[in-house]
């Protein structure tokens, strides 16, 4: 950085200023065109400016699982949270990891903030539940299928389209009876052998049932409690093709209770009536999607922990004796069925594979989900910000006004001090501004960059950094003129050393921005990003624009003659009169202080060219 190479750029800039200018012009045109082509003509606004809710989650390290917070798990968690947020019917919500252990969830304005928070923060839950019934996602027309009661034997409608019986009782009262819990614990027996799956529907489900289901009458199942019937009624009424219903289904249900769930099967939504969880995600040691070389298809293999293996053996042993669809278990992630493989035999080895109809993608996805369930991360809310667009707009306005005034002050100062030269600085600042703006707009689409308030702040602060480079260069040129040089050589001689100074200091500045970007979280990153971006652009602009323009302007009469308003008036700058200069050349070492040869450039009146810039 400190020692600029004699690369093509300096020579190019020196010899062919037009080329450098052409490059930057092309870049600007291309960026602007790109901006309009992608239709992204304004930078994406961050949630703090556009309005909405921003939730910062921090992964908590679980005792006994020191390595659980890693990139893979974080990414899986992001995927899961994203599904949840989308379940809310929110488009454009974004979920991203930030730093090592943070996830930022930005939910645009117009959503239920509380619901979002409830959904986003909870731990992802993965369960294996036996399938009691399956149907297409649409509500089932009220045509009660006569079948055995839930109490007697849990083998209702064998057909996939068939609905289980429903009772006339649509009581919304959840029955979290202690018996249910204790029964639920001994899952397979409760479900398969003993019978009644005593479910406790959640309040939200009940509400839905009330809204939707004119429950068809059916013979009241002997011994079945009202909750089961209620659940069945809801199963009939459930519409999984409806986003809102999907988002609420199974909310708050305990793993030990029967529940309803939606999921996609073959690309369309289906709904499931599910028994209590037999195995939970923590029981899975490992899972991945692999190619079964013998059959040449993608399968998902699972390894269970010791405890999980025995649970799994039990549930599969029981399921294997059943008939479709009750010989299936559903893998339920966050109340959504992600897979429902059927079981043909008890699987006792502690490992299992799921096959059939997987693509590489779906197999690997399922493998991920299963292993993620084995390593659940829990999150805590670190920060929740809700901003209405009105105030966001005020803030943006205040920021822009501040920026405009700051810029104006800088321009006035530059004009007062550098006069004509200031125009070069101002145009350079404008070029820099155009580049920054277009890149920001494009990055919104490309990497999801969103302009937030700290980023605006960073951009304003960067005005100073950018202007600084010009000052370094201009002061250098003026020093050369003070040496008695005419403008054209002064511009060229000043450049190499100004260039070095600019690079060295911009590097330090960029380093600070990079460190800030890497170590910080959330909003702060916007600030660091803008700062780093503008520092880089500063280098680009100074090299490809300011310097070439300076070279060109040095050829104009206005500047080269040292017009009083050019800012380069030798008299005003106190350039040595030729007479002094001659003497000096005689007395001094003759190297000329500007040559960069250092202290021995000791001339009478200009002892050392110590002044940099």
């Amino acid at each position, binding site marked *: 950085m400190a020692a600029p190479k004699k690369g093509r750029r300096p020579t190019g800039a020196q010899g062919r200023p037009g080329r450098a200018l052409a490059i930057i012009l092309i870049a600007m045109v291309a960026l602007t065109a790109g901006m309009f082509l992608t239709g992204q003509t304004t930078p994406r606004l961050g949630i703090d400016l556009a309005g909405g809710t921003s939730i910062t989650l921090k992964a908590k390290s679980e005792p006994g699982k020191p390595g659980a917070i890693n990139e893979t798990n974080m990414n899986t968690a992001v995927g899961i949270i994203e599904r949840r947020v989308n379940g809310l019917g929110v488009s454009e919500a974004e979920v991203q990891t930030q730093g090592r252990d943070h996830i930022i969830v930005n939910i645009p304005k117009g959503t239920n903030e509380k619901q979002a928070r409830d959904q986003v923060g909870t731990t992802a839950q993965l369960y294996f539940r036996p399938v009691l019934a399956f149907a297409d996602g649409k509500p089932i027309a009220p045509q009660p299928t006569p079948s055995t009661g839930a109490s007697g034997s849990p083998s209702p409608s064998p057909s996939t389209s068939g609905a289980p019986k429903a009772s006339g009782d649509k009581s919304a009262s959840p029955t979290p009876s202690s018996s249910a819990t204790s029964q639920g614990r001994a899952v397979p027996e409760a479900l398969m052998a003993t019978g009644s799956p005593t479910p406790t529907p959640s309040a939200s489900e009940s509400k839905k049932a009330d809204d939707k289901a004119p429950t068809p009458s059916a013979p009241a199942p002997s011994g079945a409690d009202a909750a089961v019937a209620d659940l069945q009624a809801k199963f009939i009424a459930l519409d999984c093709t409806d986003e809102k219903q999907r988002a609420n289904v199974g909310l708050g249900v305990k793993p030990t209770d029967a529940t309803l769930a939606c999921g996609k099967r073959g690309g369309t939504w289906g709904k499931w009536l599910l028994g209590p969880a037999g195995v939970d995600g923590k029981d899975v040691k490992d899972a991945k999607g692999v190619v079964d070389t013998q059959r040449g298809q993608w399968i998902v293999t699972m390894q269970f922990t010791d405890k999980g293996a025995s649970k799994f053996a039990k549930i599969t042993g029981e399921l294997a004796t059943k008939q479709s669809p009750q010989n299936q278990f559903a893998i339920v992630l966050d109340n959504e069925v992600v897979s429902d493989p059927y079981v043909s035999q008890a699987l006792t080895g502690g490992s299992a594979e799921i096959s059939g109809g997987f693509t590489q993608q779906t197999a690997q996805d399922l493998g991920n989900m299963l292993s993620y369930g084995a390593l659940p991360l829990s999150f805590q809310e670190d920060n929740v910000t809700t901003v209405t667009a009105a105030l966001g707009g005020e803030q943006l306005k205040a920021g822009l006004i501040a920026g405009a005034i700051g810029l104006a002050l800088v321009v006035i100062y530059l004009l007062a001090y550098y006069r004509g030269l200031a125009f070069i600085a101002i145009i350079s600042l404008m070029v820099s501004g155009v580049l920054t703006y277009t890149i920001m707009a494009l990055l919104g689409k490309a990497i999801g960059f969103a302009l937030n308030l700290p980023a605006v702040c960073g951009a304003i602060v960067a005005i100073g950094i950018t202007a*600084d480079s010009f000052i370094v260069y201009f002061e250098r040129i003026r020093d050369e003129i003070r040496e008695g040089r005419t403008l054209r050589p002064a511009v060229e001689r000043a450049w190499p050393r100004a260039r070095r100074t600019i690079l060295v200091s911009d590097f330090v500045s960029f380093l600070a921005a990079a460190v800030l970007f890497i170590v910080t979280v959330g909003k702060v990153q916007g600030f660091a990003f803008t700062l780093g971006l503008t520092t880089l652009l500063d280098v680009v602009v100074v090299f490809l624009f300011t310097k070439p323009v300076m070279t060109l302007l040095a050829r104009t009469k206005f500047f080269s003659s040292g017009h009083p308003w050019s800012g380069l008036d030798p008299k005003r700058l106190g350039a040595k009169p030729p007479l002094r200069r001659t003497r000096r050349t005689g007395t001094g070492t003759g190297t000329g202080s500007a040559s960069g040869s250092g202290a021995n450039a000791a001339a009478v009146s200009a002892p050392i060219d*110590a002044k940099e810039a």
Partner: protein
Amino acid sequence: MSKLGDLGARLYRGEVGYDFVGKRFLWYGVSILITITAIVALAVQGLNMGIEFRGGAVFTTPKTSASVAKATDSAAKASGHEALVQKLGTGGLRIQISDLDPDASTAVKKQLATDLKVNAADINSDQVGASWGEEIANKAWTGLGVFMILVVIYLAIAFEWRMAVAALVALIHDLTITVGVYALVGFEVTPGTVIGLLTILGYSLYDTVVVFDGLKEGSKDITKQTRWTFSEIANRSINGTLVRSINTTVVALLPVGALLFIGGGFLGAGMLNDISLSLFVGLAAGAYSSIFIATPLVVDLKEREPAMKALKKRVLAKRAAAEAKGESPDDFTEEPGDGTEVVAQGRGGRASGRRR
């Protein structure tokens, strides 16, 4: 303006100049005094940690006719905690309630909306856990450490280790002063402040690096001449870059000032204000330290080198000889340092004696 321009020219020619290096002990003293004040203030008064460090909620209301007192009262009643209320430039209110449970905040928000007669949906809320600010601060410490190590390595490579050390000292100096000002004045410390502080790192070094760059160039062939000692050259460097330093500092402070006074004034306290306030203080400290602390420190370190000691001897001997011959010593009218052992004498006033 033209006066400053003239000053630039005279500084350039060495007609005027301030003996920064020669008077460095004065400035060391000043800095030590400020630093001690800062540390004492920090110890006695402590920092006014913002809500982000204590946990709580901040509500920002739209324009309302409700008075600050009423809002304070209402917020305190609704939350059961003390509330801090500020009027904003927009006509709205900013209500800070510390120790407020995030769950309770929804209820407080509703209550506030009723009491202040605004729409609950128009109230912005920011709820933070107590660990949030701490986390940012912790990361900031990490960042600070990483940055310092990287910068020292970089400066040691680009320049030399002495400059790296001096720059580091100046950096710590700037941070101490900035934090001290916060403790002394009682400004609130928020994550925004922390960001500002981290940004100062870059800025402070930016200035220092530019001065060092000049010094490096000025002292490149220093041993091949016998006119000036290192400290004299260093002082020239500072004076030579003075105009640039002033200009860049002014230019950097202008936007930050605008941000502080306009952005902040418009919106009251907030992220904009916090960042710009710490930047403002830090920038000023950074400009000061690059001139008065960093370079003189390099001189102190450098003058210990045998080569520099030898040079100084030669320079002084030559001057003495010239004086003995009765020649008007062209460029060194100033008396040499008082004795050979003494710290280098600055040369700032050297030329002025002759030319003025």
